[in-house]
C-alpha cells in the first residue's frame, strides 16, 4: 500500500464530491428564480441518495465479482469485504475503501447531470424514484461493463479513462430520452427561459473545473506521471473549448457570452474525460477546440428539433462525451500510456471501431432503459407536476420555500 497514492485519491474523491454541488450551482443559476431551490435540491439529494445506494448495493453491482461480463454480484452488499487493505482487483496501492469512495462520487454525479434535462417541471417523489432506479439499473451495469473486472466493454478494449461513456454519454443520452418523454415546459416557444443568476452559474462552472482535476487526474489511481499528464490535458482541453465556444458564438451571434464561455469550459472537460489518460497535450487542444464548436452546435439542435432539454445536457454531455470517446479512438497513444492503446492517428484504426461500438451500445442501453424507467415511474406516481404548479414554481410547490426574500 502506498501512502502517497492513498492521500491523493482521498483528496481527489473530495474534489469530485464537490462537483455535484458545483453542478447544482451551474444548473441552479440557469433556471428561473422560482425554481432555483428545486434545481439545487435535485443535485444535492442525489449526493445523499446515491451514496446510500452505492454503499449498500451499487458498488457491489458495479465492481463486485463478475457475472457473465454483464453485472457484478451482490457479494459486497453493504461493503462486506471492502476493507482498509487494497483490493486484489482494483488500485493495488490504496485501501479498497478509498477506491470505493472515489468511484462513489462518479456514481453520484452521473444521475445529477441528467437533472438539467427536465429541470423546472418534475415531481420530487418521481425524481427520487427515477434516480434510484436509474443508478441501479443503468449506471451500475454500464460501470461494470467498462471498469469492472470481467466487464465486456473493458474486455473488448474500449478506452474510457475517466468516464466518457459511463458518465457523460450515459447521462447525456438519458437526458434526451427524458426530455422527449416528459415534454416541454409550459411557455416553450413563447416565453424566454432566461437564467436568473448567471454569477451562480459561473461559480458552478468554476467548481466543476476545479473538481474535474480530481475526476481525471485521480483516475490514474496513483500520483505519478500519468496523473500529471491527465491533469495537464484536462486543463488544456477545458481552456481550448472555452475559447472555441467563445469564438464560434462571437461569429454566430455577434457577441461572446459569459454563459457561453462557462459552458464551453464544461464541454471541454466532458470531451477530454475519456481521453485524459491516453493523449498528449496537442491532441488535447484539438479535442477541446472541436468540443467547443460541436457542443455549441449541439445546443442549437434542441431548438431545431423541438425537444426541451432545459439546461442542455444532451448538447454538452451527450455530444461532448461522444466526441471525446471517438476522439480517444483517434488520438490515443501508447507513448502516453503503455497500458492503453494506439488510436487511428497512431496506426490502429481498430481502436476507433471499438470506441464506436462502446458508444453505440451505451447509447442504446441508456436510452431504452431511461424510457422504461420513466414509464414505470409515471404509472406509479406521475412524473410531471400539474400545469398550475409549474407556473407557481418548484420551490413553493415541492418544497414550500422561496429562494430569496427581500
Amino acid at each position, binding site marked *: 500500500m502506498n501512502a502517497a497514492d492513498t492521500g491523493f485519491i482521498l483528496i481527489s474523491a473530495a474534489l469530485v464530491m464537490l462537483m455535484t454541488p458545483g453542478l447544482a450551482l451551474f444548473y441552479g443559476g440557469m433556471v428561473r428564480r422560482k425554481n432555483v431551490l428545486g434545481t439545487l435540491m435535485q443535485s444535492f439529494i442525489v449526493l445523499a441518495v446515491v451514496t446510500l445506494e452505492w454503499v449498500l448495493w451499487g458498488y457491489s453491482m458495479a465492481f463486485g465479482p463478475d457475472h457473465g461480463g454483464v453485472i457484478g454480484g451482490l457479494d459486497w452488499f453493504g461493503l462486506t469485504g471492502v476493507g482498509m487493505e487494497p483490493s486484489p482487483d482494483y488500485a493495488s496501492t490504496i485501501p479498497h475503501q478509498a477506491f470505493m469512495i472515489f468511484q462513489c462520487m462518479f456514481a453520484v454525479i452521473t444521475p445529477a447531470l441528467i437533472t438539467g434535462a427536465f429541470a423546472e417541471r418534475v415531481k420530487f417523489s418521481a425524481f427520487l424514484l427515477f434516480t434510484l432506479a436509474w443508478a441501479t439499473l443503468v449506471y451500475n451495469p454500464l460501470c461494470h461493463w467498462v471498469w469492472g473486472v470481467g466487464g465486456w466493454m473493458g474486455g473488448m478494449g474500449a478506452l474510457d479513462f475517466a468516464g466518457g461513456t459511463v458518465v457523460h454519454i450515459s447521462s447525456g443520452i438519458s437526458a434526451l430520452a427524458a426530455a422527449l418523454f416528459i415534454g416541454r415546459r409550459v411557455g416553450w416557444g413563447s416565453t*424566454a427561459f*432566461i*437564467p436568473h443568476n448567471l454569477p451562480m452559474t459561473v461559480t458552478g462552472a468554476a467548481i466543476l473545473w476545479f473538481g474535474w482535476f480530481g475526476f481525471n487526474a485521480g483516475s490514474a489511481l496513483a500520483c505519478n506521471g500519468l496523473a500529471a499528464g491527465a491533469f495537464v490535458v484536462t486543463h488544456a482541453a477545458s481552456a481550448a473549448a472555452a475559447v472555441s465556444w467563445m469564438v464560434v*458564438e462571437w461569429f*454566430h*451571434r455577434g*457577441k461572446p*457570452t459569459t*454563459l*457561453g464561455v462557462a*459552458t464551453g469550459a464544461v464541454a471541454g472537460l466532458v470531451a477530454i474525460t475519456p481521453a485524459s489518460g491516453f493523449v498528449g497535450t496537442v491532441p488535447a487542444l484539438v479535442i477541446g477546440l472541436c468540443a467547443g464548436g460541436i457542443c*455549441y452546435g449541439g*445546443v*442549437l439542435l434542441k*431548438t431545431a428539433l423541438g425537444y426541451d432539454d432545459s439546461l*442542455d445536457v444532451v448538447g454538452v454531455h451527450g455530444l461532448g462525451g461522444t466526441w471525446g470517446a471517438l476522439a480517444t479512438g483517434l488520438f490515443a497513444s501508447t507513448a502516453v500510456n503503455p497500458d492503453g492503446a494506439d488510436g487511428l492517428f497512431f496506426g490502429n484504426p481498430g481502436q476507433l471501431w471499438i470506441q464506436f461500438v462502446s458508444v453505440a451500445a451505451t447509447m442504446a442501453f441508456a436510452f431504452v432503459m431511461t424510457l422504461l424507467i420513466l414509464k414505470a415511474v409515471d404509472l406509479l406516481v406521475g412524473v410531471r407536476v400539474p400545469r398550475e404548479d409549474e407556473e407557481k414554481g418548484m420551490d413553493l410547490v415541492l418544497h414550500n420555500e422561496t429562494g430569496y426574500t427581500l
Partner: protein
Amino acid sequence: MKKIEAVIKPFKLDDVKDGLSGLGVQGLTVSEVKGFGRQRGHREIYRGAEYQVDFVSKIKIEVVVASDLVPDAVEVIKEKAWTGQIGDGKIFIFPVEEVIRIRTGEIGEEAI
C-alpha cells in the same frame, strides 16, 4: 397638491433628485420598474439562442408637491432627465386629495 410620477433612465436619478432638492422639495419616493415603450429593450443571448427582452430598466420617482410648484418641478425633471435619446421617459401628473405626515399628524401642504 399634485403627485408627479416620472419614469426616467436609472443613471439620471441623482441628477433629478438634486434638481428637485434645489427647488425645495423635501421628500420623494423612488422605485425600480421595468418600462415598455418606444425604446424596445434589447436582445439577450443564451447558449447560442437570441431572445428579445422587451422591458427596459427604469426608475420611477413619485413626488407630491404643492400645486403651484408643479410647473417648476416638471421643468426641472425634464431638464435633468433629458438625454435626447429614445427612452428618456415620461412625467405624469395626478390629483391628490390629502397628505398626512405620520410622525406629527400634520396634514395638507404642511405634511408634504
